[in-house]
C-alpha cells in the first residue's frame, strides 16, 4: 500500500471513530435528559400569582364588611391568570368563616361575592362592572392600569420586582367597606 493510501485509510478510520463517539455521546445525553423530565411532570404556577393569592387572603383580615354569611366568597371574573395559585385558599377559615373560590361567568354572580378579582381581560368593560356592583358590598381587586382610579378599590401594581397595591379609599367608603389603617399604610392611595 502506498503512503498516500495508508494516510487516507487512517484518516477515514479516525473520522468514523469520532462520528461513532459523537453518536454515543448524543444517545447518552438524550437518555440523561429524558429520565428526570418524566419524574417531574407537575403543575406549574406563577410566583407572581401565588403572591397575589396570598394578598387576597390577607385583605380579608384587614377589611370589614357590613355583614357576613357563613362563607366568604372570592370570585374571579374574566380570564383566570392564577392557574392553581388560588387552590390553597379554598376551605381555609378566616374570621371564623370558610373561604370559597369561584370562577364567575357574569357580573351578576359577582354580587354574591365578598371579593372579586377582575382580570385584565375585562379592561374594556371595567366601568360597566363597577356600575353593576355599585350597590353591592364587594371588594373589587384588579391588576389593570387605571383600575383604582376608575372606581375599583384595590389594584395590584409591580414595583422594584415586588407586588405592591393601590387603594381607592373613597371607592371603599362608597361601597360601605371599612379598610384598616394598617392596610392603607402600605398602599399607594389614589382617588377616582
Amino acid at each position, binding site marked *: 500500500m502506498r503512503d498516500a493510501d495508508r*494516510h487516507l485509510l*487512517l*484518516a477515514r478510520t*479516525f473520522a468514523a*471513530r*469520532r462520528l*461513532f*463517539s*459523537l453518536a*454515543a*455521546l448524543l444517545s*447518552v*445525553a438524550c*437518555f*440523561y*435528559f429524558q*429520565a*428526570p*423530565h418524566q*419524574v*417531574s411532570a*407537575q*403543575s*406549574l*404556577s406563577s*410566583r*407572581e400569582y*401565588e*403572591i397575589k*393569592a*396570598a*394578598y387576597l*387572603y*390577607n385583605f380579608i383580615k*384587614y377589611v370589614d364588611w357590613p355583614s357576613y354569611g357563613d362563607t366568604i366568597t372570592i370570585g374571579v371574573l374574566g380570564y383566570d391568570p392564577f*392557574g*392553581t*395559585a388560588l*387552590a*390553597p*385558599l379554598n376551605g*381555609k377559615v378566616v374570621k371564623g368563616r370558610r373561604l370559597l373560590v369561584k370562577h364567575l361567568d357574569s357580573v351578576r354572580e359577582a354580587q354574591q361575592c365578598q371579593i372579586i378579582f377582575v382580570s385584565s381581560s375585562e379592561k374594556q368593560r371595567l366601568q360597566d362592572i363597577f356600575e353593576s356592583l355599585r350597590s353591592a358590598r364587594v371588594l373589587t381587586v384588579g391588576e389593570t392600569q387605571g383600575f383604582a382610579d376608575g372606581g375599583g378599590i384595590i389594584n395590584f401594581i*409591580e414595583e*422594584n*420586582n*415586588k*407586588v*405592591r397595591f393601590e387603594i381607592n379609599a373613597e371607592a371603599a367608603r362608597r361601597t360601605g367597606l371599612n379598610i384598616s389603617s*394598617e*392596610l392603607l399604610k*402600605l398602599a399607594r392611595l389614589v382617588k377616582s
Partner: protein
Amino acid sequence: MEESHRKPQRPCGIMALRCFGALTLLWVATYFAEAQSVDSDATRDLTGLSLEELYNLDVIQLNVIGGHTHPAHEIMFGYEFMFMDMGGHLSGTRDVSETEILKHFPSASTGMTVEEHMVEVMYAPTNKLTVMAMLPIKHIDMDMVMDRFHFTEHSQGIGDLQILALYTVLGSVTKGNRLIVDAGMSFPTGSIDEKNTILGETFKLEYPMQLGSGIYDFRPGLTYLGESKKWAWGAEALTSLRFGRNGNGYRLGNEYGLTGWVGYAVTDWFAPSLRVNGRIWGNVHGADPDIDPTVDAEGDPHRQGGRRVDFLMGVNFFVPNGIFKRTRMNIEGGFPIYEDLDGPQLSTRWLISAGLTYSF
C-alpha cells in the same frame, strides 16, 4: 507540515468513555436529588406570610438556572476561575509530532496551561438592561524544547478589561423566552510586551503568551434565553471584531463564537447542564517585529487561527435561603470534540471553569 503517526494518548473511544462515565454520574445524582424534591414544582401556599412579608417578597427570584441578566437595580459580584490544558500538536485536524515540528523550527512547544481569574460586576439599571464589567488576571505557562534543552516560558498579569451591555429586545426578564442584544468593547489593559529571560537572553514572548490584544475590540452579540420552571436553555453568538493595528504593528484575528446550552433544575439549588461551544478565530494580521516567526510556530502570525468545538458538562448550585442567599456556584468542564488549527499549534486537551457569584 507533514503528518506524523497519531499519538495513542487521545483516542476518541477513551474520550467517549470518560464522557459516558461523567454523564452517568450526573444522571444518578440528578435522579436521587429529584426524588428528594418531588414537591418543588407544586403551588406554594404563601397565605402564612404576613402583609409586610408579602410586601417585600421578590416576584422574580434568582434561581439555579437563571441569572444571565438581572431584575432592575440588582447588583452582582462574581469571580470565575478558568483553566485550560494544552498538549500535542495539530495541523489542520491531523496530529503532528514535536520531531516533525523541529524539522522546520529550531524550537517547539511541548505543552501549555492557561489559568485565568476573572472578577466581574453586573448591574441592571432597568429590567431590560444589564451592564457588566469583567477583568481577567492571566497566568500562562508554555513548555518548550530547543536542542534537547527544555525550558518554560511564563507570563502573568491583567488581561483586557471588558465592558458589555445586555439589552432585552424581545420578551422580558419575567418571561420564559427572551432575545438579548449584546454590545460591548474590550479595552487594551493587557500587556502585549511580555518578555522572558532564558539563559541570559531576553526575548519577546510569542503571540499566545501575550496578555491582551493591544487594541479596542468590539464585541457585538446576540443571546437567546429560554426558561421553564425546571429547564433553561439558550444560545449565544458573540464576536470580537478588531480593526487597525496595535502599538506593536499587528492585530489579533477576529473571533466568532456560537454556544448552545441546556440546564435542568433538579431542585431549587442544583442543576446539571450541558453545553456545546464552537469558536472560530483568525490569524494575526501584521506582525510584531520583535517576535521572530522562524524560531517556533507560536511566533508565526500565520499559524494562530483555528476552529474548535468543545463539549462541556456542568453542575450549578444556588443558595435560595440563609446567610449566603443568592449565592450561585457553577463548575463546568469538557474537552474539544472537533479541532482544526492553522498549525502546527498546541491542541486543547481539556478545560475547566468554576464560578462564584453573589447578587443583592
